[in-house]
């Protein structure tokens, strides 16, 4: 591209539809992210987040309901867990692992790290990785910073250092990239082309923005809109031969009519041929082997000129 630090994270032009190949000649990718975090806002998990009826539902009945639906339709998901919840949810996580789902990191407390110093953020990253590794018996390979319902933005919050720290910590992918609707490389250092694969995420396919959003009583209950978005994006991406990611929160989508929409959506997908349903790790591994950054990431030197009356 013409690279510009602080503005761009990847190359100038995304990969066109015609260049994308999926394993076994399949037509479209389908990935499902299930976020078990109950953090309500940028401060990350608080006791209040974990001590209300919706939280209890989310950690018990809701999570089981979603797992049963995934099992019934044979769909694999990536479960994202803040390190602070890994012990609370030990039994649940064991059940999901037994079903073949992947467990990925959702930060230490699922807190906003955008204003932390690099050292403080690195320290929290180390602790989160250690806690998750101890509980899971293996290091997580994916890291997510998904948005929370009361964040000021709907994209998740990372700092300018996060991706670089994740590379140094040995992570294989970042789970919520927004610069493309397929996997793409997030460059943390232009000179060395040091990069981490980012998997696609988009909030219009994330249940938390359509179900009692942003909190009980505000009345923004639009599961039908979410269902329409899932269908419209899936159809469009399938036609293009690209990828569709949906993000689920059991405390939200696990409830009654909402769960029925999820079942209806998966029932529809069951009749669609040539879908590839990887976990985050499988998707990242396929992508980095098939489309390595050394060959497929096209970075061009910066042509940006600074001016005293302009932002840089």
């Amino acid at each position, binding site marked *: 591209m013409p690279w510009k630090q602080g503005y761009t994270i990847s190359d100038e032009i*995304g990969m066109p539809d015609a260049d994308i190949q999926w394993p076994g000649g399949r037509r479209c990718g389908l990935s499902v992210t299930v976020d078990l975090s109950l953090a309500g806002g940028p401060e990350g998990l608080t006791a209040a987040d974990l001590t209300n009826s919706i939280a209890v539902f989310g950690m018990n009945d809701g999570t089981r309901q979603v797992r049963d639906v995934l099992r019934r339709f044979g769909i694999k998901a990536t479960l994202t867990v803040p390190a602070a919840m890994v012990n609370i949810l030990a039994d649940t996580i064991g059940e999901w692992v037994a079903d073949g789902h992947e467990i990925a990191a959702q930060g230490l407390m699922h807190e906003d790290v955008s204003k932390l110093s690099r050292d403080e953020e690195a320290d929290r990253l180390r602790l989160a990785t250690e806690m998750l590794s101890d509980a899971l018996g293996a290091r997580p390979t994916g890291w997510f910073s998904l948005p929370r319902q009361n964040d000021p*933005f709907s994209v998740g919050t*990372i700092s300018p250092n996060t991706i670089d720290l994740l590379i140094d910590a040995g992570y294989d992918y970042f789970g919520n990239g927004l610069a493309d609707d397929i996997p793409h490389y997030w460059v943390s250092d232009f000179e060395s082309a040091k990069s981490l694969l980012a998997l696609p995420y988009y909030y*219009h396919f994330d249940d938390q923005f359509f179900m009692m959003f942003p*909190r009980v009583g505000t009345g923004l209950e639009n599961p039908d809109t979410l269902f329409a978005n899932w269908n419209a994006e899936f159809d469009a991406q399938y036609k293009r031969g690209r990828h569709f990611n949906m993000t689920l929160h059991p405390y939200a989508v696990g409830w009654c009519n909402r769960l029925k929409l999820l079942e209806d959506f998966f029932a529809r997908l069951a009749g669609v041929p040539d879908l590839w349903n990887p976990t985050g790790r499988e998707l990242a591994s396929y992508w980095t082997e098939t489309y390595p950054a050394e060959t497929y990431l096209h970075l061009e030197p910066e*042509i940006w000129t600074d001016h005293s009356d302009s932002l840089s």
Partner: protein
Amino acid sequence: MGHEHLRADIAALESAATAYGERHEFLTDFACPGEHRIAVNFTCDFDAMLLRRVLGETPLQFARGEFGGRVGIWRLLELFDSHDIKATIFTPGRICELYPKAVRAAATDGHEVADHMWEHRVPKEPDVERAHINKSTAALTALIGHRPTGSRSRHKVGPLIDAGYIYSSHGSAHHLPHYITAEDGVRQLLNIPFHFAIDDAMFFSFAWQGSGNAAQNLTEPDRVLELWWAAFEQQYEQGGYLNICLHPFVSGRALRIEMLDRLITRMKTKPGVWFSTCEDVARHCLDAFPPTGAGGA
């Protein structure tokens, strides 16, 4: 008696409204060229992450905008080309340093590339404002080979006229193109209207215009398709104008490209639709309905 100060307040309101209103000259006999009943301008505000940068937001907000530069703009160009429609790409000057290939491709495909502010803001200082207009104009000129003729911005009218612009495109003072008088009270610039109700960000962009979470209205494509179709039909029946404002980082998403494809296909079932660029509409108005000075001194 005793109402003097209230009457004075009301008189001040009246004179403010009158003075502001008099800066507008409306076209009383607007008609599209030939047999056309309606002019439809598809416009793309190609700001990618620049507004997020002006607002000092975080890396994933920038990445959300980056989608527009590396993916969305290409899909929109492909959509317009597949329908043989020429659109107007309102492009901040800085985008020429981030996505030069897309800007060149838009111009090569025959689309209009016009100004959308140097770095997606209008500086308060008059000298800096003029410098920004000049920087953006120079950057676009270098890529497209000629000076842009329009600006979607709230730049002051005088500086835009001085820089050679023949139209602006902002605000909704009238549903048809109209003239706005410059700060000197004399010169007039054609304005091509735009309305937030026909703007993708209104429906699909979280925290757009700083709205809080409880005020979000994230919706789905079919609802917007019907709203915009109703807008089109109303103007079609009346014989008028429709400006559809799209952001590549919003409308470039696959589900919305598909919706726009259906919207355009439906519009094309009607005879007499003039799919044109803003510059086409501007030149037509300046030629057929020149300003009379009624909005000037």
